[in-house]
């Protein structure tokens, strides 16, 4: 009997674990190690953050689902990896620390034949002074990164709405809280959902909304922007985004690295080197991501973390980390199989794999501060990668060590993104966008690096309905209800 350990139970890890359990059956064991008791459909946290959904709507208990799937579930966080075992045993193992109340703080070593690192990111609030400490949200801003954060955000938003109703003008600042953030899309959704709710509450005229982001142009979204083709013409997502912001009367600051947050004020540095300040009454700033801080040890107990993990804490995989300057970047730099180059039984998926470089053009301020989006590995690509990795491991377990690995390069993969801009059965809007490939391939598609026949975007009510349907579909799939395997990632 082989044992596969999946570290993390987010979108990518949950997909990998559930498909692996289905394909391997009861002859082999799948273990999920995740510190959370609940699964969270993170994209819908946006709606929790504006009070349009409850925490219960976007989460469910993992234990019964894993029991149904025959997965061994450990509510714990992974602490370290010993990919070559230790002095007592040749078998590789993971050291975990339980987070469930009855065993909190208790450590355990679990041996494995294969391991998938799908821990997701550490929400690195501590990277920006005042934004938070370590992975804990600070007191000055709100977040929608977790369901609990989103509930808190909705409460704070409601307080602001009450103040506006009593005649007090409010300033909203929403965007990214550091020069190297990703997930601009989530902040983009949030600012327009807030705007929509303010309008519904009849207080839009009492609110000043401002966007702040590390993108060098509006609509970059961490993928260098995209182009929407229509009638033989193509318009950049910059024009699309600027039109939307102007239409909704939302001002913006771009090319900004937020370097300090205080009560009611952020300090930032711009790409041109200028320093600025912005006041706010309500602010939702996405933190930068980092690896969760897993350690790795050799057989002799030596620290081999640097061998296994990139400096940002994400797991090294079969990517070209030596691509160097922007002009050398190629689609082929991006990983195909997500297998660790040192240990062939170790894989990563979702945010936990170390990307070879950014997708957007790298930029620095004259002071040397890097300001630019890091590449997104969330949503559709993370599910697809999780499934491909599970497929590879299952093949190796069932067919033998020489079974070919499955590939899911982000440079060969398209993605669909439905960004909500307001919730409502008849008043809702969402921007539905497709992009192919996610990582531009400048050799195959000279110009933008993308196939514009498969890259388009539309905004409207239908997009909102799709977004809402997707919420129910993905919750259904994640709960492993009838027909879950038929629903694509």
């Amino acid at each position, binding site marked *: 009997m082989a044992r596969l350990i999946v570290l993390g139970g987010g979108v990518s890890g949950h997909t990998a674990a559930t498909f692996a359990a289905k394909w391997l059956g009861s002859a082999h064991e799948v273990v999920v190690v995740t510190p959370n008791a609940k699964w969270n459909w993170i994209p819908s946290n946006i709606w929790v953050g504006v009070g349009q959904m409850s925490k219960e709507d976007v989460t469910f208990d993992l234990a019964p689902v894993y029991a149904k799937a025959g997965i061994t579930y450990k509510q714990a966080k992974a602490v370290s990896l010993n990919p070559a075992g230790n002095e007592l045993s040749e078998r590789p193992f993971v050291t975990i620390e339980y987070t469930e109340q009855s065993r909190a703080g208790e450590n355990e070593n679990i041996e494995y034949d294969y391991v998938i690192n799908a821990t997701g990111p550490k929400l690195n609030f501590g990277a920006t002074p005042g934004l938070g400490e370590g992975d804990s949200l600070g007191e000055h801003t709100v977040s929608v990164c977790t369901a609990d954060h989103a509930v808190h955000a909705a409460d704070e938003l409601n307080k602001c709405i009450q103040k506006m109703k009593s005649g007090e003008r409010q300033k909203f600042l929403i965007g990214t809280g550091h020069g190297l953030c990703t997930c601009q899309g989530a902040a983009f959704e949030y600012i327009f959902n807030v705007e929509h709710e303010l309008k519904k509450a009849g207080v839009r005229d009492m609110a000043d909304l401002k966007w702040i982001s590390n993108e*060098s142009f509006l609509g970059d979204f961490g993928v260098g922007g995209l182009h929407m083709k229509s009638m033989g013409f193509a*318009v950049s997502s910059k024009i699309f985004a600027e039109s939307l912001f102007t239409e909704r009367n939302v001002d913006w600051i771009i090319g900004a690295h937020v370097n300090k947050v205080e009560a009611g004020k952020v300090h930032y540095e711009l790409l*041109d080197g200028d320093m600025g300040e912005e006041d706010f009454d309500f602010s939702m700033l996405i933190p930068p991501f980092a690896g969760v801080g897993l350690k790795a040890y050799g057989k002799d107990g030596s620290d081999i973390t640097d061998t296994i993990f990139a400096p940002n804490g994400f797991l090294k995989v079969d990517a070209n980390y030596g691509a160097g300057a922007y002009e050398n970047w190629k689609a082929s730099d991006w990983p195909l199989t997500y297998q660790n180059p040192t240990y062939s039984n170790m894989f990563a998926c979702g945010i936990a794999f170390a990307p070879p470089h950014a997708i957007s053009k790298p930029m*620095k301020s004259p002071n040397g501060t890097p300001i630019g989006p890091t590449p997104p590995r969330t949503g559709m690509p993370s599910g697809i990668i999780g499934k491909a990795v599970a497929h590879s491991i299952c093949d190796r377990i069932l067919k033998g060590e020489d079974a070919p690995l499955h590939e899911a390069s982000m440079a060969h993969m398209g993605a669909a993104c439905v960004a909500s801009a307001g919730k409502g059965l008849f008043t809702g809007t969402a921007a539905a966008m497709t992009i192919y490939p996610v990582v531009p391939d400048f050799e195959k598609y000279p*110009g933008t690096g993308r196939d514009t026949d498969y890259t388009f975007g539309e905004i409207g009510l239908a997009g909102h309905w799709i977004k809402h349907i997707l919420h129910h579909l993905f919750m259904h799939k994640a709960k492993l209800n009838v027909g879950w395997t038929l629903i694509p990632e």
Partner: protein
Amino acid sequence: MIKEIITYPTPPSVEYSTDVRVFNEDLFSLIDDLKETITANSLDGLAAFQIGNHFNVVVVKKEDGSFLELINPRIIMKNGNIVGMEKTAYFPGLSAEVKRYNKISVVYQDRDSNQHSLKAEGAFSVLLQRKIDYTFGSSFLNKLSSKEKAIFEKKLEFGSDIAISETCPTTFKRDYLVKLANSLVIVIAILLFVSLFVDDKSCLSEIWKYQLYTSFGVLGVNIVYFFYAQYEGKEFTSCTSCQIGNIIGTTLISLVKLTFVMILSYFLVNPL
């Protein structure tokens, strides 16, 4: 080499704007082409897009006549608004009122790939914004207010700025006169229909009298329409439905209707 400037309706490029990644002879050659094309056409600047190249490159002429090369430009900061009439080589001979930022800060690279930034204000700021729009596949058409856009689309239709300062309304006051004339003709027709069921000559004589008076009314309304429509049309010189031919046509149609009904009435209603 002097390049042909792409003009509307040809899209500037179907290979969409992309950042320059490799700074080599091809780039330098592109910049030279832009400069020569600017000089040959006495322009204030060009985006590579406008000569059919998909790279994110802009060359503008500074006040002292020298060229400023901007590679991969981005507008980072913006302040204040300014509204002014703009022209661009993409829409030759046409102008539009465009709302722009008064002050901007732009980061860009030079031909050696070194990053720089500059601050611009007023006309120079507007010029940079217009050129950078092209590098993202846009023209000032996307910056126009809905009213100005409607006017500009008319200019595109006529291919000229001359005498085009307004949109063509879909309804006019004179339309009420046409409606009145038509209603009166309908009244005459109804009287004609009623007369078919009347045998009494004195009654028919009364009906014919009313028809006659009403027809004079229709004639009068048409005369008022003919002159008032021309007066109203002077406000909308670009509007085809305001032209004299259209007005004559509308008047004639009304009179033909009246004549037709009155001829029928003369033979069927008039007891004399």
